[in-house]
């Protein structure tokens, strides 16, 4: 300290690290010198009023009435001591990170409602010391860059969502987000000016923006892009995938073996067919006719070959007429049980009723085909 009590101050590196501002811990006296470096701005207040924003690197001798003789006299006479202070601000850029705490539901035309999360980094710096001092130091008493970043972070996330919403209205889908990340960054940057200028903060850069999709949606997006590359539709693509998976299946199996030897070439379509069938609603079963047992009279299902009650063979009970004598002939009989004629060698014309040999193709009486 000098003979008049003045000193030279600078913002020590130890105090500087994570602090975006630093308040000199002493009332400034007459001829106190401050050193302002390239990356600093010093704000000199006297009696609560901003006198200067010193942003050029140099050493500055400050004035106040806290002078060696005058100051004590004024204080003695009036009890008044002038209040003078210096606040240092950092001019350099700071890096902060943002990330959404809650997912953002994005209504997509193809995938429906998709929950998005956004992450990224931003760089910021003080653009207007006047507003910064007023907003962050005067109002909120923030001193560390972490506190300032916290304030910025949530607004950046809101901006990301806002931009996504507007771009969605212009036709952006979730599948297009990845290819538009730098565009989204630029839109956020342009909009950030209106939001952060009033705090005296400038968002210099948005980088590393990543908008994550839920895993299942990401898979679907990947699938869709693969399909586009192959020029296939979804069912074709899925069929191909199923074949590939089957071929890679180490446990083998019929499908794997079939694909391995080329026998499964048509398997995809077979699977497709079976999938289609499985998706179809099975038709209602028609009511089945019953057969009466010729022996015990029990009603049996039409598909039964033997009676469920007595075990007798269930054949059609419908008898035919003997073409010779007209007697009833049991089914599958070769000869008429009444006249003994060979039934299999004779048949009746359906048109005129004449008896004709079984091998005839046309009726010898009326000429109609038999």
């Amino acid at each position, binding site marked *: 300290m000098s003979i008049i009590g003045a000193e030279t101050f600078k913002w020590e590196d130890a105090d500087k690290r994570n602090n975006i501002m630093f308040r000199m811990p002493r009332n400034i006296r007459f*001829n106190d010198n401050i050193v302002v470096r390239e990356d600093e701005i010093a704000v*000199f207040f006297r009696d609560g*009023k*901003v*006198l*200067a*924003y010193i942003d050029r690197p*140099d050493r*500055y*001798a*400050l*004035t106040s*009435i806290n002078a060696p003789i*005058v100051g004590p006299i004024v204080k003695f006479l*009036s009890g008044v001591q002038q209040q003078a202070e210096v606040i240092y601000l950092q001019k350099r850029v700071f890096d902060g990170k943002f990330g959404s705490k809650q997912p953002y539901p994005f209504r997509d035309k193809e995938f429906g409602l998709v929950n998005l999360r956004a992450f990224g980094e931003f760089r910021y710096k003080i653009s*207007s010391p*006047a*507003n910064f*001092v*007023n*907003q962050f130091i005067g109002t909120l008493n923030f001193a560390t860059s972490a506190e300032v970043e916290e304030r910025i972070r949530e607004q950046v996330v809101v901006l990301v969502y*806002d931009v996504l919403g507007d771009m969605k209205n212009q036709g952006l889908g979730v599948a297009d987000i990845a290819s538009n990340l730098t565009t989204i960054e630029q839109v956020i940057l342009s*909009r950030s*000016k*209106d*939001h952060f*200028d*009033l705090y*005296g903060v400038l968002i210099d850069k948005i980088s590393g923006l990543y908008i994550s999709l839920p895993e299942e949606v990401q898979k679907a997006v990947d699938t869709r892009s693969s399909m586009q590359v192959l020029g296939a539709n979804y069912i074709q693509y899925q069929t191909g995938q199923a074949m590939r998976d089957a071929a890679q299946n180490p446990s083998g199996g019929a499908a794997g073996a079939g694909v391995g030897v080329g026998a499964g070439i048509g398997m995809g379509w077979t699977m497709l067919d079976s999938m289609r069938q499985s998706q179809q609603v099975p038709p209602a079963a028609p009511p089945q006719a019953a057969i009466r047992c010729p022996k015990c009279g029990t009603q049996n299902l039409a598909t039964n070959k033997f009676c469920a009650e007595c075990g007798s063979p269930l054949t059609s009970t419908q008898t035919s007429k003997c073409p010779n004598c007209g007697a009833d002939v049991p089914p599958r009989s070769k000869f008429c049980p009444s006249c003994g004629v060979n039934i299999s060698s004779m048949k009746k014309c359906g048109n005129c009723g004449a008896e004709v040999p079984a091998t005839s193709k046309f009726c010898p009486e009326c000429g109609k085909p038999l």
Partner: protein
Amino acid sequence: MTDIRRRVEEDRGLLKRIQSYIPGFRGYRFREDLRDADRMLRGQLADKLAKQRKELEECRSFLAQHQSFEILDAIGGLINQFKKLEGLVSYAETGYSGLVSDITIHEEELNTLYEYDLRMLELQSSISSDIDDLKRDTMNVEMKKVERMITDIKSKAADFEDQFRSRLRVVEGTEV
């Protein structure tokens, strides 16, 4: 128009009067009074900006009530721009030079600074007429015109900011 400098000078209290007779204090006292006069003037400038901002907020409310959401973003940006200007004007530097400064600010420069800020008041009044037009177009729901007026006012507010930021350089004579 009232000259605040004269009012501040006339209303000096006893202690300040004594200070103005003490060698070494005299210059300090006069410069301090000029800065106070300028600060009061800037206070009025900031108040007028706040009033204009409130009118813009009324337009915003009207647009919101009539669900004209497409322009809300733009008018919100304009309102923020006015908030920024308010802060800039309210807490601007007042023309100070320390001991042995490269460029010294004397009483003449401080007088020029006051007059500069007085002219800013006139510049601001041209923005007021634009805001009146904007209000009228908003009430008539003429959205194309509203959009254009917002752009015009933004541009004028940006000019205002540029001029205000350069005030000290102009007054010091260091503007190239």
